[in-house]
Every structure is written in structure tokens, then in C-alpha cells.
């Protein structure tokens, strides 16, 4: 009898390529890269079966720094290329890495359709609310009034919310993380990986050169506990450094409000309990803005449906089963044909 030796589990550093990482020192991307390498190790990802696909931008350099298969493509089109990969070989484990400009400006259409089709990939959106690689212009997620080389007097247009966009497009898995969440990020990526269908993960990522501190109002150590709500399925929504703040549904309105436990006779039982399968709840949580409401972090929504490529494969299997023949010679002779005899 053959003894099969299970392959040695790979360590996070085994997923690093031999290429020198070339992001700016202090860039949030380094932390996300570490988080992904740790997640790959935790998952036990097979390098040969894993493909990282990216478009253009700082984040899009990601595949070069991993020892898996990688495809650095063109601006905004990574979702389309990933879709082609998955319909050709559904066995491959595909991750798409993108930025806010790549996925919500030039590639917004492709992200929309990736999500509605529910192609089984992990989609990581590094949101730094700025164009980094082209030297600091405002992006589709920049807040109105952002001063940048292309908007010296402040931007006029309102930003798009990545989470609202994803939910609107029909995403079945929507999560949020922060580049500095070194402990939680690998777990978040692992959940994204477990989910069949498109797993959409927005990561607030600090651009140290062009948009430093843009998320500090809810990520700085002193304020983080009071400005972030970390979601857990089945648990009441409690936050705050004293764990005494909570979220509940406002009476008579489809709105959330922050309450203090023990104040105005509010108890834990009054708080909303997070339900990952509730899309409306996810929409409300995604809309919390970090000023009068905390920013929701973690898995906002997870309610799987069959993936696109599963549907494509099932359809093909049915068509093949019902087909009289797979012989092209027979196909060319179906329908009306006629014989010409030798004269």
C-alpha cells in the first residue's frame, strides 16, 4: 500500500515571491500583503492552484509579490479577466486585487457584473480614497471637497460607497477590514475564501504619501474602539472602549441609532443582533459613516447562492447529456444537405 505523505504545510513566507516589494515605505499595502500570506498559509492554499489577478494601480502590483500564479492586467479589467479564467478552469482559486480607482471608476462596470454573476473569486478592494500611482488625484471614493492636483479647489462630486455599490450589484458576501487589523485580516480573508461566489472585501488602506490619515478619525488608537463596530454573526452590536455602546433600530423608522447600555433603561436585549444573511441590515450597517455612527467592520453580509461557473458547468453538462453527438462531422451534416453525383 502506498503511503501518501501530506505535503508540508506552507508558511506565510513561502507565499512570498523573490521580487523586491516596491510600495512606498509605510504603505498600508504591506500589511495587507502580510495578511494575505498568513491567510494563504492558514487555508493551506496550493500555490499552483492559486491565481492572483489585478488591474492597474499601486494595489495591482500585488501579484508580483506572491509566489502563486499571477496576472497583472489592464486598468479596471481584472474582473473580466478573472471571469474568463474561472469559466475556463473553475478549479482554480482566484483572487482579484484592486484599488478604488481601478474597480469603481474605470472598471466599475466590470465589478458590477462580476458581483451580479457571482463568479467564485475573492475580490479585495484596497480603498485609499486617492489615485496613488498617478500621483495623488482624487478618486471616486474621495470625500467631496478633496484637494488634489486635479482638484486644487476641492472636488465637487460625491463619493461612491464600495459596500453600498457591492450590495446593490447583488453581492452575496460583503466584508470590511482595515490595513492595520493585523490580527483580524487573515480571518476575514479566510471567511472570504470559504464563501462560494464573489466575496467582496473592502479594506481601508492608508496612502502615506498622498492621503495620509484620511481614515484616522476612526482608525487612530484613541478613537478606534468608539468609532468602530466589529460585527459578529448572532451577537448583539456592542462597541466602545467601555463596551457600553450599542446599535438599535430607531423606533418608527428604518434607521439605526447609537444607544448607551444602562442609559434611558436600554439593555443589551434592545440591541440589534447581527444577522449575516440579512441584506437590509447589511445595507444599513454599510451606510454608517464613522462620525455620528461607528464604521461597521467585519462581515456585513454572507448569504451564498450558486456561483456563475457552477451554473455554466451544470448547463454544459445538461447540454452534453441531451446532445445526440459531439462529432463536428455530424454537426456539419445536420439539417438540409444534398448529394452531387459524379457527372
Amino acid at each position, binding site marked *: 500500500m502506498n503511503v501518501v505523505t501530506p505535503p508540508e504545510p506552507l508558511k506565510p513566507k513561502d507565499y512570498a*515571491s523573490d*521580487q523586491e516589494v516596491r510600495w512606498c515605505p509605510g504603505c498600508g499595502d504591506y500589511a495587507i500583503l502580510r495578511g494575505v500570506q498568513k491567510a494563504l498559509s492558514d487555508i493551506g492554499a*496550493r*500555490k*499552483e*492552484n*492559486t*491565481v492572483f*489577478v489585478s488591474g*492597474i494601480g499601486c494595489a495591482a502590483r500585488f*501579484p*508580483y509579490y*506572491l*509566489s*502563486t*500564479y*499571477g*496576472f*497583472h*492586467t*489592464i486598468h479596471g*479589467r481584472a*474582473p*473580466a*479577466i*478573472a*471571469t*474568463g*479564467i*474561472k*469559466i*475556463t*478552469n473553475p*478549479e*482554480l482559486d482566484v483572487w482579484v486585487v484592486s484599488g478604488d480607482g481601478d474597480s469603481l471608476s474605470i472598471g466599475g*462596470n*466590470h465589478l458590477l*457584473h462580476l458581483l451580479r454573476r457571482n463568479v467564485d473569486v475573492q475580490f479585495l478592494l484596497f480603498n485609499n480614497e486617492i489615485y496613488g500611482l498617478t500621483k495623488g488625484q482624487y478618486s471616486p471614493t474621495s470625500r467631496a471637497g478633496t484637494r488634489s492636483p486635479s482638484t486644487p479647489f476641492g472636488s465637487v462630486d460625491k463619493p461612491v460607497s464600495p459596500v453600498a455599490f457591492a450590495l446593490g450589484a447583488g453581492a452575496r458576501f460583503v466584508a470590511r477590514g482595515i490595513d492595520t487589523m493585523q490580527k483580524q485580516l487573515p480571518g476575514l480573508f479566510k471567511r472570504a475564501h470559504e464563501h462560494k461566489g464573489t466575496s467582496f472585501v473592502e479594506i481601508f488602506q492608508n496612502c502615506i504619501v498622498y492621503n495620509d490619515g484620511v481614515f484616522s478619525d476612526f482608525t487612530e488608537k484613541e478613537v478606534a474602539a468608539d468609532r468602530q463596530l466589529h460585527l459578529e454573526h448572532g451577537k448583539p452590536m456592542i462597541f466602545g472602549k467601555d463596551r457600553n455602546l450599542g446599535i438599535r433600530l430607531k423606533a418608527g423608522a428604518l434607521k439605526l441609532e447609537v444607544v448607551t447600555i444602562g442609559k434611558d433603561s436600554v439593555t443589551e436585549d434592545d440591541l440589534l443582533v447581527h444577522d449575516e444573511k440579512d441584506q437590509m441590515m447589511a445595507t444599513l450597517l454599510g451606510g454608517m459613516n464613522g462620525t455620528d455612527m461607528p464604521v461597521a467592520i467585519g462581515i456585513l453580509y454572507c448569504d451564498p447562492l450558486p456561483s456563475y461557473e457552477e451554473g*455554466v458547468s451544470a*448547463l*454544459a453538462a445538461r*447540454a*452534453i447529456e441531451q*446532445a445526440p*453527438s*459531439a462529432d*463536428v*462531422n455530424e*454537426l*456539419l*451534416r445536420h*439539417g*438540409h*444537405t*444534398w*448529394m*452531387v*453525383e*459524379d*457527372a
Partner: protein
Amino acid sequence: MSISGTLKKEATKEAPRKELESAVVRFAGDSGDGMQLTGGQFTLATASAGNDLATFPDFPAEIRAPAGTTYGVSSFQINFGARGIKTSGDSFDVLVAMNPAALMVELKGLKTSGIIIIDIGTFSERNLRKAGYDVSPLADGSLDAYRVVELDISQLTLEAVKEHGLTNKEALRCKNLWTLGFIYWMFGRERKPSVDWLEAKFATRPEVAAANIAALNAGHALAETSEILDGFQGFAIPQATITAGQYRAVTGAEAIAWGLATGCQLAELQMVFCSYPITPASSVLHTLSKMTPFGVTTFQAEDEIAAACAAIGASYAGGLGVTSSSGPGIALKGEALGLAVGVELPLVVVNSQRAGPSTGLPTKTEQSDLYQAVFGRNADSPLCVLAARSPADCFDMAIESVRIATKFMTPVILLTDGYIGNAAEPWLIPDVSAINPFPVSFEIDEEGFHPFRRDPDTLARSWAIPGKLGLEHRIGGIEKDYDSGHISYDPQNHQRMTDVRADKINRIADDSPPQTVELGPESGRLAVVGWGSTYGPINRAVDNILGEGSEVSHIHLRNIWPLARNLGELLAGFERVLVPEMNAGQLVTLLRSEFLVDAEGFNKVTGQPFKISELEDAIRARL
């Protein structure tokens, strides 16, 4: 009088039919009159009768243009005969005009003394006005130069189908079958294939099938028993001398679809066809969508860019990505094609050309995307460009596209056009099992592997696909180091990579057949050089001029880029070179710049194929 659903033996009138070597019939009516269907059925019946043929469906861009208007006229032309048929015909012998607008639009194409079949049931004052007639052409003598058959086809059809219980609207829809029956008698065609077809098509609505068959038979019977024209006993077109074998009618769109699937089977690759609907390329998508059992996956993408990108993803994953479109869509794919050039992945891109610029004339034919195919990308981005010359040729060229794309790891653009895509011709069905396969072998050798390691002969890079342990690698649009495949910004390396990409494409010429001369001497006074769908008219025109005893040659290019190795030398052997194209002069520029040959353009962009007579005149003027 009507004949019941069963067929009786074709009766013949006492006097013999008039024998013609070939004939051209044009069916014209409203968009909703079913003229394309009528033409398609007549094509099958004519092919079965052993004639060679060529067709030209000519229809408006609007799906249902307002009834009775001239811009809503939909036409189908067929040229068939006892000799080899090369084009759909310059002018027609028989015109079927289902309404005044059809007569208004099409009369100018009818030969003097040609026959017009007119449905006078539609010649109301209102319809005449809509068509732009102040006075009915039936009354003012303007049709005196023709032989006119006036029939109230609308009324005759209603009578023929009344026992089948259709609504008035449904019953009138059988008009085209009534007309088809009439034309079938005129040319002695068998009705049975159309009867079989109707029974199959309306299997779930037998009353509709029966009504249509009744209309077909009634039209036939009326033609057979009545005196249509003085002494007219119908036409007979003898069988053409055609290579023996099994035939079918094929359109270019079908031939491309089947050829691509066959090519992928020969390459032993999964075919992944990614496309976005666009006229006139959509029929390729429709045909392939039914071919799942043949190893074809189709993907209707969200836009042209996504279609090209998904196809690139498919090739990256180890399938063969194929995308198709028409000029405006190819423009959108441009950046993705650059990526495929840069990462050197196989890709087949079909361009069913149409008249432009911009939306242009979506349903009209043109061959004005040659520049776009050869040069239409940023930077030095060479790729292979092939062109099909006829509907049946699309099959062979599709296979050749797959072969070159996989052998040389390059995108291949296959040019067809709206005319080739929609037109049908008889096709001697090939035996696919007799075609030499060209299986792809993916890289398996880890020793010294890098993704841009090249085959020393073809310069194709090694094709390693995800899933293979030990060959994990990263590729992308950034310039690659020649020796490692890693990102490289080194100036000398970029020179070297640019050179090798061009060299690789040039080497395709060594792997392609030398340019041959279709007709006429190998050198001499005048070479008429064409490409794509102008094959038919050029070939017939050159043949006719040769028949007059003049010296002229026809050269037709399938390999647009790279050009055939011997082409420059071949052209140098002629005193003059004439290049007819349905554009403002694109191949002619390429030939002049590549070979410093004094080639002269002959150009037309009317949305209609060249007429043989136009070409004959142009040739004669240069002899």
C-alpha cells in the same frame, strides 16, 4: 384553385421551359414580409437542384421599420446557374416586389425586359404615397420596359389559407410562401424541402404549417395553370458541373463558428468564446451558443472590453479565448489586444466589418478595418491578420487562425464582413477527421523555466498554465525581461523585446503558404489584387476579360499581416497593379509601403459589393 398539403409530381406544361445559363432573382418587401426567409428557402431548393449559387441578403438596420417605407425595404438576392457562380449578380432577371416601396427601391437593379412580380394588393393610394409615388407606376407606363406580372397576392393568399382558421393578420403572413410557390414553378424547383421545413418549424402549431403549405401550393398552382406572360413556360437552369460529394448551404457566420470549434478540437483545447452583441457579428455568437456539446463555452460579456478580457483570461487559464465583433467593438478591444500582444497569449479575434466610421451603416458591408487590424493599437503591437474571401472560406480561415494563434502564441485577427457573414453559398462539406491536427502542448519542464522562454524556431513563448506545480509565475502588461520574464525597465531590454515580438510575427510568413495567382499569368501586364469578400466579383471580372483575349491576372490575399514572403517579387512581375477595395484605399497603401510598388486603388464604399461590370470597366481602362 388550390392543391392540398400532399405533393403531387411536378407537372410540366406542354411547351418546354426556356433554358438559361444563370439567373438572378431579387425578393423585396417590407421588413415584416419575410423576404429573408423566402430567399433562404429558395436558396436551399436551388442548391438541391444542382445549381451553383451566391446570395446577398440586404436588409435595413431597423428591426421593424415603419411599414411601407422605402427605408424599411428588406431584400434578398440570389444568383444561380449552370456555371460557377462567383457573385450575387450585378442586375436581376426577376424582381419580386411585395409593395410599392420595394418597387421604388429595387426597380433600378432590374434588367431591361426583366420580369417583375408585383403584389397589387398592397398598391393602395396610401402605400404608393409612402413609397414616394405620385402616380401609380402600374398606370403611368413607367414599367413598359419590363414584363410585369400583376397579382393580388394578398387576396390570393387569404383565399388559399381560409380553411385553416388563422386570423387575418396571421393569414397575410403566409404571403411570402405563396410567392415562393409561384417562383418555385417559374424555375422548376421542388417544393418538398420547404414543406418538410415548414412542418418541422411549426410542429407545435400544425394549423400554421398547413396554412403556409397551402399558400406555397396555391402560388405554385396558379403559376402552373395560368397564362402568366405571353408564351412564358418557365425557366430551366441546367445543373452546374460541381465536384461530387455532400453539400450544404453555409453562411460565413456559420462557417466561422464551425471552423473555430473545429480548430479548437484540432488544437485539443477548450474553446471559450466571449462576445458582446453587435451587428453584423452576433450570428457567430448565436451559432456557437448552440455548440456546448462540442467543447464550446460561450460567454456574453457586459461589453466589448470585457469580452476581449474574458477571452484573454480563458487563454491564460489554458483554453483558447476567442472574441468577435465589428469595427466599433474592435476599437474598444484595442487595449486588451495590446495586453495579449504583450503577454503573448493566443487569442482569436473575428471582425465582421461594416460600413463606418462610428455606427456608420451597421447592416451594410465594407472592408475598411484593414488599417485598424494591422495598425490599430498603441505602440509597436504587431499581431497576425487573416482575411476570409467567401462564406465557405471562413471555415478554413477560422481553423488557420486557431493554428497560428496557438503555434505562435499571438492574437490573430480574422477579417470577414457583413456580406460574407450573411451570404450563403453551397459548400462541399469537408471531412474534419482528415484535417491534420495540431495539438497544443503546455509547458511541463521546470528546468530553467521562465514564462518568456522561447521556441528557437517560432519564437513563441512557453505556455505554462495555472494548475501546474513548479511553474508558478507572474506575467503582466509591464515590459518583461527577455531572460527571466520579470518586470524590466531596462532600455536595451525593451528594444530587444520589441524586436522579438515583431520578428515572431514576421516568422508566421514562413509557416504560411506562398501567394499564388488565382487566374491569369504569373507575371505580365496587369495584376488585380484583392482581399476578403471582393473575391467573387474580381474573379468573375478577370475571368471575363481573359475570355475576351486580354492579359490580366487575379491575385487574392488571405494573409494580410504578415504578407506572403513572395508577394513583393510576384507584384514586381506586373506592369500595373490594381487594388479594388470596399474602402478608401487601405491594402493599396500597405502594398505601396511594403514593396515600393506603384499599385493603384479602385475604391467603392456604397455599402454594396462590387458589380462585375464595374470591375471589368476598371480593368479594361488599364489594358
